[in-house]
């Protein structure tokens, strides 16, 4: 579904993303891990077509981001770090507009809108003006925006940041459901986070990015085999030293 080939982004002298390659299969949920400024957002922005890579390329659902940019973008639902909302619009009119510019055919727009409202539990606030909604609701509108055209690929940049535990649980549940194809088509999901618990809660596979390079790409099972925690992996990969507390209490293969 997603195929990144040596994606590289250079901002002047700074190498933000350095030759990152990976493939994500249909129905997979991949967690993008990495410290702030590691290049997670930049990688996602290249996949969504917001910024072009300096080098390398990617295919989304079989469409090359350079050769068929519109087809590739149509196949992606993207929730940026700050949900892209027009505060003066109502939830319904906003989602209708997004459905329109995402090429949902006129005849299917109403159905697409209702489904997105339903899935993101927004029915009660459908007539509300977005600017008056709470942060949790705005995040859900952001997610509804990403799924309204039922794209095969979902790219979510820190989807649960700034939410309370209940809301986090709801959003995670929704993402799991989207990937399993419980209601509607099966989605392929990439989500970035720096919360380890989130990765173990929803992802089957982890890609760790540090200083613009991919340092780990493995399934959650492989990574936690032998009782190792994701935290220690994260600490080791991002600083070069395994967190002492974890390594002392859980040496490799001890449990």
């Amino acid at each position, binding site marked *: 579904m997603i195929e990144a080939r040596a994606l590289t982004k250079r901002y002047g002298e700074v190498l933000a993303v350095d030759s990152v390659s990976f493939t994500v299969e249909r129905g997979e949920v991949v967690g993008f891990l990495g410290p702030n400024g590691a290049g997670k957002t930049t990688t996602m922005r290249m996949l969504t077509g*917001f910024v072009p890579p300096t080098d390398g390329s990617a295919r989304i659902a079989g469409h090359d981001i350079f050769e068929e940019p519109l087809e590739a973008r149509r196949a992606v639902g993207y929730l940026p770090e700050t949900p*892209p909302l027009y505060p*003066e619009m109502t939830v319904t009119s906003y989602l209708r507009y997004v459905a329109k510019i995402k090429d949902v055919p006129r005849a299917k727009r109403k159905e697409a809108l209702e489904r997105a409202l339903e899935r993101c539990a927004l029915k009660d606030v459908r007539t509300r003006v977005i600017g008056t909604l709470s942060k949790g609701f705005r995040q859900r509108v952001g997610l509804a925006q990403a799924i309204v055209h039922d794209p095969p690929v979902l790219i979510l940049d820190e989807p649960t940041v700034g939410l309370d535990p209940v809301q986090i649980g709801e959003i995670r549940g929704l993402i799991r459901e989207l990937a399993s194809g419980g209601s509607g088509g099966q989605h392929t999901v990439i989500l970035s986070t720096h919360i380890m618990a989130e990765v173990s809660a929803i992802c089957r596979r982890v890609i760790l990015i540090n200083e613009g390079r991919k340092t780990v790409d493995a399934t959650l099972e492989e990574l936690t085999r032998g009782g190792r925690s994701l935290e220690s992996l994260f600490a080791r990969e991002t600083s070069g030293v395994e967190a002492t507390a974890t390594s002392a209490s859980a040496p490799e293969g001890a449990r």
Partner: protein
Amino acid sequence: MRHVGSVAGRELRSLFVSPVAYGVLSLFSVLAGLFFILGVAAFDTWVRQLMQFQAFDQLKDLNLNDHLIANFYDTVSVVLLFLVPGITMGIFASEKTNGTQELLLTSPLTIWDIVLGKFLGAAAFVTLLVAIVAAFPALLFVYGDPELGKTASGLLGVLLVGWTYAAIGCFASSITRSQVVGFLIAFVLLLCLLLLPAISDLGVMGDTVGLGASLRWLATGEHFQQLLKGLVDTSDLAYFAVMIGSMLLLTKAAVESVRWR
């Protein structure tokens, strides 16, 4: 280009759900009405004075088109100079602060869909303002006998001036994140266009290279005046097309520039 209409429609609706559109429409109607009444009063005084002095030659030259409607249109164009930047100031700047720029640029839209859509949204609103303007000379047709052609060509002039201002406003908004800065840049650019004839009149920079004439050609007012006189010339229409086209090209480059950074 399939989505120009969607983008334009959203832009226009957004103006009408905020108080901006209603504020601008009310202010504009009041100002236009005021200037029209003042114009009519001045015209009336003029006629009376000329009758008193029995200056029949001058009375014969006096007409509603040149001495009332043209002045009114001219004043309206100055009002637009203040109002249009207010309409366009957030047109691109707010997309950046809302983060919706990411939505637009990751949707299956071309840059032209976005730029043309937004310009047409603003232009549609300006057209609404010009429709209000049209109501005043229409009144004169009830009570007097102005020339239809001249009245219409002047109105076309106001419309083209408004669209040009909107294109300049779009460009100004596309190069900043701040609405206030967007307003100021547009306003300064429009003032420059207004002052160009005065600058070229200084004559310091050489009739030798024809710079004065070029500056004069760039001034919106020069071409507007032709339309006010009832002269619909292709070269003047081309000026407006060139101005709007080049501003939209610059806007496209500015919107696209996030992609090259």
